[in-house]
């Protein structure tokens, strides 16, 4: 399959063209994207800091996750949709941008880390009570998550400075 042709087709669609050529459409979608990302990273850091054991120690991990993660997911959906719309406006250029590609790889890493945590690291979570430290696997998952999401934001910001 010819990826270049597919990307070219994508950015030539009505949606892609409209976003690219309209002066205010791109900035508005981008602003929504920024707001969504800010909430994804901000809320996930609440959970990660608890996993690492430096904040919200007075709240059980399972309870904190149950309270906060729905908002993380909601914000992520908005970020993904707005991101996809932004991508279609200039698919060929973004697909060749180092920081965009890096950001996608980092997102995959974040997902991978999350999957591993939910499959194995989370075992015994019902015993991680209030004011208790979590097992090493959970601390690691939290630290990796924070590092990856911080990098997602940094890479995302650098896309704008490196578009040719």
């Amino acid at each position: 399959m010819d990826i270049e042709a597919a990307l070219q087709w994508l950015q030539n669609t009505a949606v892609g063209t409209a976003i690219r050529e309209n002066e205010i459409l791109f900035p508005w979608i981008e602003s929504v994207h920024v707001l969504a990302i800010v909430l994804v990273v901000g809320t996930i850091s609440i959970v990660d800091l608890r996993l690492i054991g430096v904040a919200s120690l007075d709240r059980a991990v399972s309870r904190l996750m149950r309270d906060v993660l729905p908002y993380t997911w909601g914000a992520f959906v908005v970020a993904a949709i707005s991101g996809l719309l932004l991508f279609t406006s200039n698919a060929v250029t973004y697909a060749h941008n180092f920081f965009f590609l890096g950001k996608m790889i980092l997102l995959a890493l974040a997902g991978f880390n999350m999957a591993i945590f939910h499959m194995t690291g989370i075992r015994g979570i019902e015993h991680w009570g209030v004011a208790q430290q979590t097992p090493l696997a959970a601390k690691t998952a939290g630290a990796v998550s924070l590092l990856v999401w911080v990098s997602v934001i940094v890479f995302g910001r650098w896309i704008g400075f490196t578009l040719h």
Partner: protein
Amino acid sequence: MNPAIGKSLNDFCAWLDQTALSQAIQATNWVVPTVQSIHILAIAMVAASALMIDLRLIGVFGADQPLKTVSSRFLPFVWWPLLILFITGAIMIVGEPPRSLKNPVFQIKMLLLIGALTVTGIFQIMLRTNSSFAGASRSGAGITIAVVSILLWTGIIFAGRWIAYYS
């Protein structure tokens, strides 16, 4: 804008632009993107923390906990990152004085910020001095504060992004 204020602002920007620090920042290509990234990360902490408190005020988040508990958990993560925001913001202003100070979108952002800080301050004072406000699971005043807060922080984030488009 009042012409006298406009002229002083112009003069200030011209002066700031010529300082050694400003020239040094302008001479690099990595300072502004790096400082912006730190700025965005700090906003993430502030916005998410303010949102959790606001959602508690509305009664949809952590409603099993007293308002004071949720507030104590998240308020430090509103105020401390704000310090980082001011420092990184100052660096960006010094690095690009006209882009920020003379930009109406930036000025609006600062007004909204003053609003958000005021609302947060009012909330903290009410929490400390008004026991029925602190003890209620939900209140009209609390919901009002929450909605205004959410609108202000959203406006600040949008304005932040739009600075670049108004230059």
